[in-house]
């Protein structure tokens, strides 16, 4: 499973890529692989104010629907409609297929997330 350096990771297999006060959020290679063929993606409304743990969106494989949670508080600035139009992008390029760009409310929340190293270790134990 690919784990990119420089991103933050959650135990629910979301990644967070921080750029200044903003962050892109998506699901990891491990997550897309466990789900299998992704055939549907639902994204939040632009402008939505989310708290860590809230549902950010939904990804559905052939077999099942899974919620994706935001690991950080934030206001949704942009969503990636390309993955709504072609959900298989999430399988093919999980780290390029961000779901939402959020404005970070509290950067200290990033401390609760894992680094690439820690996430790799976490996956080994899964």
């Amino acid at each position, binding site marked *: 499973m690919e784990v990119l350096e420089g991103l933050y990771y959650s135990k629910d297999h979301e990644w967070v890529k921080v750029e200044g006060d903003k962050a892109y959020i998506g699901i990891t290679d491990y997550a897309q692989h466990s789900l299998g063929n992704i055939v549907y993606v639902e994204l939040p409304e632009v402008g939505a104010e989310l708290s860590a743990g809230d549902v950010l969106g939904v990804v559905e494989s*052939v077999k099942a629907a899974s919620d994706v949670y935001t690991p950080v508080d934030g206001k949704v600035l942009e969503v990636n409609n390309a993955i709504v139009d072609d959900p298989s992008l999430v399988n093919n390029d999980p780290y390029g297929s961000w779901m939402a760009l959020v404005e970070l409310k509290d950067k200290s929340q990033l401390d609760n997330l894992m680094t690439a190293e820690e996430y790799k270790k976490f996956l080994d134990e899964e």
Partner: protein
Amino acid sequence: MDNLKKTPLFDLYKKYNGKIIDFAGWALPVQFESIISEHEAVRNAAGLFDVSHMGEITVKGREAFNFLQNLITNDLSKLKDNQVLYTFMCNYNGGVVDDLLVYKYSDEHFYLVVNAANIEKDYKWMKDNKGVYEVEINNISDEISELAIQGPKAEKILQKLTDTDLSEIKFFYFKDNVKIAGIECLVSRTGYTGEDGFEIYMPNKYAVELWEKIIEVGKEYGLKPAGLGARDTLRFEAGLPLYGNELSEEITPLEAGFEFFVKFGKGNFIGKDALLKQKEEGLKRKIVGFEMIDNGIPRHGYEVRADNQKIGYVTTGYFSPTLKKNIGLALIDSKHAQLGNQIEIVIRNKPLKALIISKNFYKKNYKK
């Protein structure tokens, strides 16, 4: 996973990257490569399924014909030797105990193939209804493995492994003691995918060898190992019911839309009175096909609404790999069940629009 039942092929799944799940108490592969690629392989070339979890029950004896004719809804008297019959076995309320295949060797010897989840229940039901019939009923499920090779290239691939002319086995017929790769098998031209293909039964000890031979020979034709995920999307597109979804002890064959397999004119059978009554009174609910108008994937158990009221639930729903549409089957109140009617499917608390369409989503490609 350790407490799950395993088929003789279990140790091979790893070699083919099988992703194992618990299916009715069995450890079985939901997929190998991916559900969609396996689904497409079956539609366009061929797929090989391990369906050894399916149950086999033999019925033998002087009154085997009469016993079964009373037990099942379809008409055995039309069945020739070496022919296969799809039928239901109903309870006295007309609900479905199981759907099954009946292989006829002779009027005194039949071979039944039943759903894995229902083996014990079916076997008990049959013994409980044996009455005074002179028959011997044997559950041989633990001794028998079953492979299904399905798809337009299935015959070509299997023919490479046998001297028996497979084209002589017509749709829903079988032949026993067919040597495939030197292994004696029971072979029928049947399946659960809407494609041409064969189901092959053999003693457990030969299953691994036969699987490997078919994979080897099939490779150049595009055959892929296929899991339960693709098996379900394939049968669903072809409008074939799944016990537990479209059929159950509480759903009758008439409600499920399969009256064709209930022969009221054949004489008595278990469930006949209840089914006849239901037919005369008219169905209060029935299974329909639908296509989503709004964007969303319907799933088993989702609520169906019309006029702001619950009218039923989704029995199976998918993004259809072949049709590239979100479609489903639902058991709903008959007064809303006309083709072309608009209904709503509640997905994550949102009622989304859908249209009732024919449930034959995919035109079956049987070689008759």
